[in-house]
């Protein structure tokens, strides 16, 4: 299955833009946020123009349409990740909120498998995004539990699994890890770690923000108990994300936010809660955004997720070869496309990432510079900051070449080559 990139680019109006005084845009920052196809943009407009109403609580035709569209998006999301049932899909603002939802719900538990206290351990990894570090630090502060982590092996960007037996033990309550690193591109052996966690009765939460948009992902295959991703990295709108959790866990887990729609009955003294997923969706949700996310998933399914993955692998192979061929450029993470996604972070000797990014921007090439919300990982590799180029279905081999030329230009400008 191949992908017609010229046809796909026609679906993304923003790719026609000129930037910085007439340069064509080469958007290589999709790991940060992806661009949106016309189909998604139109779906938002159509929802607001034709169907806008609140969901689950409006006794009129528009309310029925809005509810059907919103719940339809939930079904699409469930199918997109191979969930058994759409009631396992909770809509959130983004994956940060999804992870916080689990962390706060665990902190609210007074008993049962979610209760945490001194002596209990939560295990994460050194290559996590801040959104999969800070909520757990905060939970450990609140409960007295201990935070532990897998280290990375070095610039090859792998988790040091030699510590698995020691790290994952009978005290472990939860293991939270990233499926695909937003910095290194590394695709982690989630299944292997999940099996170790389950063997000691621990739960597994997977941050799939960087994998779900780019490859077929199956929650059961990964061995996840919770899995989160965000809509805006997957051609969908901002303000909408998904937290999937196994049904029995969502039933047992206490709620996070209280408010409208998440209740069953309310008295002045106490309340009982709605069954999941509504138990975790307090207040009016981002309805149009959920509908837009559903359309984005339709779009990616139509293009073909295997085809998208294959296309990105081509871009990645070219980029790895090109960048490795530039003297003074050091790539963080695996140097070959196997078990690797199409986000490439690198250092350029003698040129700070901000300055690399500035020169690239001047040529219309959009990348990200900094620590990419993964400061501990950068520290572990002895890197203050890096430049990251990330690719998606609408990128071309020519853009990869433009990136390499832009890096050489930055070296020339700062007189290091």
């Amino acid at each position, binding site marked *: 299955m191949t992908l017609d990139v010229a046809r796909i680019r026609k679906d993304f109006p923003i790719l026609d833009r000129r930037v910085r005084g007439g340069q064509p845009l080469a958007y290589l920052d999709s790991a940060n946020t992806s661009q949106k196809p016309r189909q998604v943009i139109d779906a938002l407009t159509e929802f607001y123009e034709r169907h806008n109403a609140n969901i689950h609580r409006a006794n009129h035709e528009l309310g029925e349409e809005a509810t059907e569209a919103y719940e339809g998006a939930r079904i699409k999301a469930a199918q997109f990740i191979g969930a058994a049932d759409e009631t396992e899909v909770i809509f959130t603002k983004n994956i940060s909120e999804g992870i916080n939802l689990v962390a706060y719900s665990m902190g609210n538990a007074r008993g049962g498998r979610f209760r945490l206290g001194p002596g209990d351990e939560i295990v994460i990894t050194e290559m996590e995004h801040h959104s999969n570090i800070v909520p757990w630090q905060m939970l450990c502060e609140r409960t007295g539990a201990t935070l532990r982590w897998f280290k990375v092996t070095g610039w090859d960007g792998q988790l040091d699994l030699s510590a698995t037996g020691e790290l994952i033990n009978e005290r472990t309550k939860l293991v939270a890890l990233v499926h695909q690193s937003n910095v290194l591109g590394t695709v982690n052996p989630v299944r292997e770690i999940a099996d170790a966690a389950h063997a000691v009765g621990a739960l597994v939460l997977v941050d799939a923000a960087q994998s779900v948009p780019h490859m077929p992902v199956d929650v059961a295959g990964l061995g996840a108990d919770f899995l989160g991703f965000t809509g805006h990295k997957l051609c969908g709108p901002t303000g909408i994300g998904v937290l999937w959790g196994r049904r029995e866990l969502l039933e047992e887990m206490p709620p996070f936010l209280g408010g409208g729609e998440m209740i069953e009955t309310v008295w002045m003294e106490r309340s009982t809660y709605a069954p999941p997923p509504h138990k975790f969706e307090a207040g009016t949700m981002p309805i149009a955004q959920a509908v837009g996310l559903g359309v984005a998933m339709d779009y990616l399914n139509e293009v073909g997720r295997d085809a998208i993955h294959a296309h990105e692998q081509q871009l990645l192979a070219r980029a790895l070869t090109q960048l490795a061929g530039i003297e003074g450029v050091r790539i963080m993470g695996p140097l070959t496309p196997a078990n690797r996604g199409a986000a490439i972070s690198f250092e350029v000797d003698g040129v700070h990432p901000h300055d690399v990014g500035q020169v690239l921007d001047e040529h219309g090439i959009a990348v990200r510079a900094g620590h990419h919300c993964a400061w501990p990982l950068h520290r572990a590799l002895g890197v*203050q900051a890096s430049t990251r180029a990330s690719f998606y279905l609408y990128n071309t081999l020519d853009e990869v070449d433009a990136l390499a030329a832009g890096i050489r230009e930055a070296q020339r*400008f*700062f007189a290091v080559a």
Partner: protein
Amino acid sequence: MQLESLYQEIILDHYRRPHHKGLREPYDAEVRHVNPTCGDEVTLRVALKDAGAEPAVADISYDALGCSISQASVSVMSELIIGKPVSEALATCGEFVALMQSRGEAEPDEDVLGDAIAFAGVSKYPARIKCALLGWMAWKDATAQAMRDEE
């Protein structure tokens, strides 16, 4: 091509050969400032001295990691401010902050800002303003601490 207007020769010179870099004794206050979006950091020391009616900046030294803009800016700032009375240095700092917030519209006053006028182009790039201000904000903070300790 706008790159040359952003990266003026003065900036590149200070980046390659920073002035007053390396932490020195004696000092009255030391601060560490970080730009959390990119991880740029500066550790900066200030020494004050009595100069007639009011204190003056006796010395500034620093250790810093970061982009050309942030490195050149702290170098230019040190060169400009060392020796000035604190009140005048604060006014210079205020002038530089105003220049950074000018979106490229302001006409910088070379009499006040000296080499720091080279950063005028930075104000057109909102993402880089924090880089240019990192050293200045660290100096202002360190000076406030040194003044408090004196009292």
